[in-house]
């Protein structure tokens, strides 16, 4: 007897309102179906009616967590179209904000992973630490979320010596605190046991389904836009791609912890090696006809913008593909053969949005057609109960 569980369109575990319909047999998910569009804002159409400058602030509002990613990807592309070379100091500040944003996004995600796995003190710790980086971002840009630091040809605000030393101090504290996350497996084997083996995605399937970002790297594929398509400053920085080959949620945690430490390294390099000079070059109002493909490694994975110019002050076409969309086919694969109880954990592992208050999931019984509404907290409680009853995965080891 199979049941269907609709999840969404309004659902806490997802970045956007999205509808997922799970076919389950007993506790096991046999199929998952996806339906998007509940939050479609017609942004690509809107961008065709806005000027190049106005579109920076439009693209910044695509995402509320990695706002800087979209703006940077867009600005990179438009600068190519306008044949504009931003000053190196401007570029360093731009990508410094990028890495700080990655730190805040990954810390946020680690907290969510801990929370969904029933390890709430981990959530408290990481979110406390995240405040440090949020304060740094506010100090640099004046804003906590939409930094609005990018402009065509560079950035809008400069850094002074006091700010530089504050960034270095903040990063030193964060690095110390992050070392705790390294040791967490040794002190909390139940956390590792809860996330090991959940949401499996093999290397072959990850590649075939065009997964991106930490999801791809946790399946053992070392691909990162910062390495393979280095824009501006990344080829001058010394960093490694964090990967894991366990192909599950544990791997995704490991990849993000590794990336945190790599980001600290990059931030220190950029602050210490900040070149002197201007921060912005004057941009023309119009761009010559042409096209460009711009890629950027957002915290969630590869972000790609395709921009066509027609010679006017507005784009002819702006195509945006955010990383979460690329990960949906892989999510469906991860959910298959998984348990209902693992749904929150698997969803959270692709790093969807976090402004998730407690909302509801509707469970429909196919036999009686009766719907019962379950709160997210109950679903999580069931998840904990199931994993409590399951034999502890004794072979799961913390890889650090």
């Amino acid at each position, binding site marked *: 007897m199979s049941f269907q569980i609709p999840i969404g369109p309004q659902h806490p575990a997802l970045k956007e309102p999205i509808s997922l319909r799970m076919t389950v047999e007993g506790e096991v998910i046999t199929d998952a179906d996806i339906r998007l569009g509940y939050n479609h804002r017609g942004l690509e159409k809107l961008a065709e009616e806005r000027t190049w400058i106005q579109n920076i602030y439009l693209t910044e509002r695509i995402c509320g967590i990695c706002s800087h990613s979209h703006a940077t990807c867009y600005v990179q592309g438009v600068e190519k179209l306008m044949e504009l070379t931003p000053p190196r100091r401007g570029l360093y500040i731009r990508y410094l904000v990028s890495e700080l944003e990655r730190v805040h996004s990954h810390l946020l995600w680690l907290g969510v992973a801990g929370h969904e796995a029933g390890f709430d003190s981990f959530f408290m710790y990481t979110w406390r630490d995240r405040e440090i980086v949020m304060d740094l971002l506010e100090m640099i840009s004046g804003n906590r979320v939409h930094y609005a630091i990018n402009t065509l040809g560079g950035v809008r605000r400069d850094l002074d010596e006091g700010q530089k030393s504050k960034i270095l101090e903040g990063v030193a504290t964060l690095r110390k605190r992050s070392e705790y996350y390294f040791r967490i497996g040794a002190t909390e084997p139940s956390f590792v046991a809860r996330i090991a083996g959940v949401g499996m995605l093999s290397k072959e399937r990850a590649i075939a389904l065009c997964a991106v970002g930490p999801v791809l790297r946790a399946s053992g594929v070392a691909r990162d836009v910062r390495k393979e398509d280095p824009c501006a400053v990344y080829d001058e920085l010394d960093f490694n791609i964090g990967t894991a080959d366990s192909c599950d949620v544990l791997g995704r945690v490991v990849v993000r912890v590794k990336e945190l430490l790599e980001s600290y390294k990059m931030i220190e390099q950029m602050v210490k090696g900040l070149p002197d000079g201007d921060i912005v070059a004057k941009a023309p109002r119009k761009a010559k006809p042409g096209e460009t493909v711009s890629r950027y490694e957002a915290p969630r994975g590869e972000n790609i913008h395709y921009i066509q110019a027609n010679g006017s002050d507005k784009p002819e076409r702006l195509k945006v593909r955010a990383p979460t969309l690329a990960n949906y086919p*892989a999510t469906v694969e991860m959910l298959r053969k998984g348990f209902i109880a693992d749904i929150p954990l698997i969803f959270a592992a692709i790093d969807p949005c976090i402004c998730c208050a407690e909302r509801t999931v509707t469970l429909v019984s196919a036999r009686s057609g009766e719907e019962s509404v379950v709160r997210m907290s109950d679903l999580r409680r069931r998840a904990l109960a199931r994993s409590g009853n399951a034999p502890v995965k004794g072979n799961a080891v913390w890889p650090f």
Partner: protein
Amino acid sequence: MSDTDIVESLKRDLGAKGLELANPAPRRIFLKIAPADLLATATVLRDKYDCAHLSTISGADRGETFEFLYHFASPVAVITVRTGVPRSEPRLPSICAAIPGAILYERELQDMFGVTVEGIPDARRLVLPDDWPDGQFPLRKDWKHVRTEEVIPGGKS
């Protein structure tokens, strides 16, 4: 493999299929083919050029034709495969047989440009609502958004 190597090798492998080949910027290669050659080209790119990763498919309304751009990302370059279909008969073959991850992008194209993707494993709507009127394709240039008149039950007071 450098950009010029890729361009040379693509010329050899595709022969007459490759209509135009350009390398306007480092790590950016643009290739034009006929729609009928899409699946074969995608297979060649996947097997020989390490382009199993399709970043996305962009569509653009160019008046008499619709232009579709498949952005394939290999570890060394982004190979953009461009193809055009006439506006009067917008049909495109699916490449899901070679790249299963293309499904969402192809469904999005169907919604936004009204192109029929032939052989798509799942042709349902993706981003437009189920009650969206037929024949309305938002990303076509002649489509304009008209805000529906607001109806307030009981009228404005």
